[in-house]
């Protein structure tokens, strides 16, 4: 047995006698970027998943190819709460650069496996340490030093498995999946894992505080990241033109489209029913999308904040000249380059009103990988139906992390291609039509596609002023008519965008509004409030812009509305404030913007604090609080990792 220094009371806490916590823990692995730990972490996550335990994996990585610190967090939770949890139960320290900080951030009683030379046990005495001589264990695994380094990381999978009770057979199966049946690689990795298992058995103390046991909550489920889900949705949504410029965290979306389209969209003669173009920049990418949309393709691009900024001019053209196209924004932390590999919801205002002049855009906001799939199709439909750029607002947490989901259902709804006049129809109309003529009264005019074989099919598209016949015009009335009709079109869109998901609990006086990935922390926080404090809350999960009447109704029917989002300013809350008029005094903001996904406990703590301040006995306090809220809404700002958490109430 290796020498471990553990405080006696901690030993007691983790040794046999007490009841273990089953299928509810967070594993945090600290490694060096580029050391191959991603495979190890995926295998670990997948083996827990295969044991039937709900699980999620979040990669916190640097903007770097190799050398900088990276972390991977696996959360297993029997109740299905797979949003981020900030408390770490089992730490794996493999990186000398961060070992001290990683250990210091642990809660008392946590477990910590560490690479022997890091000598973590000296850092504190209220954590259970497991020292492992990884280099020694990996020494005879391979002659090749590079491969040996990769295999070293597989050794900790064996250690963790043995300590937690994860079945070896599930690890082997997960390896098969990870290495896609490449037997040589599988064998080498199994040997590494067995080294870990054997070492833990022979030389480490056992622990009984956290255990992973078989259950049956993942049967038939898939694991996928949001970008891949969006790619599959796009491919099955009939996208034909995809253009992109590489940018973290969106690159994998279009790269996945290439993979899936090659699998499914090549005809027998080897020819493709799609075109994917890597553009020279985001301006060109969105220009191609709009040109393709104009000429009749279902077209899309994906990018992140900096790309959205560059696309601003073209998106205004798309709005004003009425060109279809889908733009995925996989949000990362801004402003400017910001934190390219961290998550945020900071592009809300930007995409809602992108470009100069009066503009407003349709925005879809998926919360889950399943919604990434669904909204990919929906966005292509809406873009063509409304002849306008449509945004899909995802984020790094959703796009790049691994999520458990029910398999995606094959789309059965017919796709919508919008109002397009054919040559036959033009003959019927005797050539009388106007490109921007609102003959249906819904703000959406008819269009023709270039190449339509009719002498009156053509019209001239321009970003300058135009009349209903698409003629150049600077007449005041023509301009006003055009932008008023565009506003009407946006009104019409309210009837077609995805409805919010509303959960109204009887007697609940508090209502939550959230969107996107915040929902994972929020649903868990509601559960905490219910179980720990007996507080029932209602929840309105926003899924699209424009806002719909349901939003006003929800705000009206609750006393206090907490808008929870992952940006500094409460961008969505401010938009909602403008929308709900006199009910705006009910709104409060809970803002999480550290670059890490929001977690449930932070929300719960914030609510409790804000509720306490609102209800401090006297009615006068209440009134005062509400007046203050009406001018400057209360914000609770939370930071990352308990120790560094800061809160500011303004």
């Amino acid at each position, binding site marked *: 047995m290796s020498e471990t220094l553990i405080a006696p009371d901690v030993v007691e806490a983790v040794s046999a006698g007490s009841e273990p916590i089953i299928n509810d823990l967070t594993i945090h692995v600290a490694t060096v970027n580029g050391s191959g730990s991603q495979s190890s972490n995926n295998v670990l996550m997948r083996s827990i998943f295969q044991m039937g335990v709900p699980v999620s994996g979040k990669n916190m990585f640097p903007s770097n190819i190799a050398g900088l610190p990276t972390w991977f967090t696996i959360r297993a939770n029997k109740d299905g709460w797979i949003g981020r949890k900030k408390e770490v139960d089992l730490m794996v320290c493999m990186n000398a650069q961060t070992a001290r900080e990683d250990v210091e951030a642990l809660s008392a009683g946590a477990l910590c496996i560490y690479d022997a030379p890091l000598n973590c046990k000296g850092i504190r005495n209220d954590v259970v340490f497991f020292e492992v001589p990884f280099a020694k264990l990996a020494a005879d695994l391979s002659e090749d030093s590079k491969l040996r380094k990769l295999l070293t990381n597989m050794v900790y999978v064996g250690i963790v498995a043995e300590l937690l009770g994860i079945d070896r057979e599930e690890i082997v199966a997960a390896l098969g999946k990870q290495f896609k049946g490449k037997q040589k690689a599988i064998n080498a990795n199994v040997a590494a894992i067995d080294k870990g298992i054997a070492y833990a058995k022979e030389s480490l103390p056992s622990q009984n505080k956290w255990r992973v046991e078989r259950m049956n909550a993942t049967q*038939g*489920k*898939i694991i996928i990241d949001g970008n891949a889900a969006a790619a*599959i949705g796009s*491919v*099955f949504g*009939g996208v*034909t*033109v995809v*253009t992109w410029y590489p940018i973290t965290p969106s690159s994998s979306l279009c790269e996945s489209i290439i993979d899936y389209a090659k699998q*499914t*969209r090549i005809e027998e003669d080897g*020819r*493709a*029913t*799609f*075109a994917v*173009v890597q*553009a*020279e920049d985001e*301006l*060109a*990418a*969105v*220009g*191609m*999308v*709009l*040109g*393709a*949309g*104009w*000429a*009749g*393709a*279902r*077209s899309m691009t994906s990018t992140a904040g900096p790309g959205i900024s560059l696309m601003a*001019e*073209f998106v205004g*053209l798309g709005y004003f000249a009425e060109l279809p196209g889908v733009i995925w924004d996989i949000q990362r932390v801004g402003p400017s380059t910001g934190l390219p590999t961290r998550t945020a919801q900071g592009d809300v205002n930007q995409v809602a009103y992108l470009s100069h002049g009066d503009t407003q855009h349709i925005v879809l906001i998926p919360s889950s990988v399943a919604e990434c799939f669904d909204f990919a199709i929906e966005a292509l439909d809406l873009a063509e139906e409304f002849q306008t750029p449509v945004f899909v607002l995802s984020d790094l947490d959703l796009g790049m992390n691994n999520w458990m989901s029910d*398999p*995606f259902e094959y*789309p059965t709804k*017919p*796709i919508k291609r919008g109002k397009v006049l054919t040559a036959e129809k033009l003959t019927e109309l005797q050539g009388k039509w106007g490109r921007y003529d609102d003959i249906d009264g819904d703000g959406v005019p008819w269009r*023709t*596609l*270039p*190449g*339509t*074989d009719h*002498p009156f*099919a*053509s*019209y*001239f*598209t*321009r*970003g*300058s002023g135009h009349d209903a016949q698409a003629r150049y015009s600077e007449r005041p009335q023509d301009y006003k008519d055009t932008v008023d009709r565009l506003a009407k079109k946006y009104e019409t869109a309210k009837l077609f965008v995805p409805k919010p998901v509303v959960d109204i609990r009887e007697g609940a006086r508090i209502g939550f509004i959230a969107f996107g990935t915040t929902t994972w922390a929020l649903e868990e926080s509601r559960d905490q409030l219910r179980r720990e404090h007996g507080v029932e809350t209602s929840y309105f999960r926003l899924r699209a812009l424009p806002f719909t009447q349901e939003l006003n109704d929800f705000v009206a029917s609750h006393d206090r509305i907490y808008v929870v989002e992952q940006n500094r300013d409460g961008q969505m809350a401010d938009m909602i404030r403008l929308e709900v008029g006199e009910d705006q005094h009910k709104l409060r903001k809970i803002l999480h913007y550290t670059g890490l996904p929001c977690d449930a406990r932070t929300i719960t703590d914030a609510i409790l604090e804000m509720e306490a301040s609102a209800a401090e006995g006297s009615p006068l306090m209440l009134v005062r609080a509400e007046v203050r809220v009406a001018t400057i809404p209360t914000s609770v700002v939370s930071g990352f990792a308990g120790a560094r958490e800061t809160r500011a109430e303004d």
Partner: protein
Amino acid sequence: MAESTLKIGTGEAIKENRLGLKPADYQGGKSTLCAACGHDAVSNQIVRAFFEMSVKAEKVAKFSGIGCSSKTPAYFLQRSHGFNSVHGRMPAVATGAMLANHTLKAIGVSGDGDTASIGLGQFMHMVRRNVPIIYIIENNGVYGLTKGQFSATADEGSKLKTGVINEMPPMDLCGLAVELGCGFVARGFAGDPKQMVNILKAAIAHDGMSVIDVISPCVTFNNHEGSTKGYTYSKEHQELLHQIGFVPEYEEITVDYEPGTVREVTLHDGSRIVLKKLEEDYDPSDPVQALQRLHRATEAGEMLTGLVHLRPEKKNFIQMLNVVDEPLGQLPLSRTRPSREALEKIMQDLM
């Protein structure tokens, strides 16, 4: 000055083309440019070239960026869809449109500001991709619509109306196109309509990107004493690489010539470009010779016109993408939505 064109066939103007259409069917709206603007002369030759080549206007898509030149697609081929996009970004829009429907015949009109400054990046990448489009730069050395500032193609030493002298070297868009591997590079002059129409016809027949830099004088802001892109100066300094003749694929005309005096280049569709050498035997398939000749012309203050570079066999962007024959934008759902089994297989792999 030698005649810039080579007489082929009878040379008689036709009144009706092979589609039974008249020149009027190819007209556009009334121009709003200044009287005698070089751009209008180019528009006229575009009308003539498409009419004489019997291209159905409904199958043409017109693109432009922003500026005086970019207004012109409204002044020709009224039956074609047109797209006046944003400044310098026409290449992206046109590329997207061609991806959606590669059966269209694309023509883009840009200016020296639109292409050589704000749009230089997009222009270069479009050339590199070899997107099938006729890309015309109506080059006058100044920004006309904003009232006469220098552009990046202004010649060294040329003078603005205000007396300001340009001291920077001009950007040679033909040279740039050659450098980037363009398979069809030409320079024309708005004041030489016969040469222009032959270049345009050849460009229509070419199955790839053709870059046509047309010196197109701005009569209002760059046609004075000291201008190097005005009518008088250009006429005096035009230097011909060769005489150009064009034989469309549907005409079986043989050209009589003395051996060694003429080069023929056959285009993808079988039509032929006939080049009669003048002072030297210029090989338009040689990019190095092209660049040398262009540099020499700039140094000598010549306005070199003709077919600078021809490599019609190059694969175009649509061919590289290996897409189906039908326009992608018009494929039925049965061809763009994979089967239920395909989704099930993907899901199975993710379990």
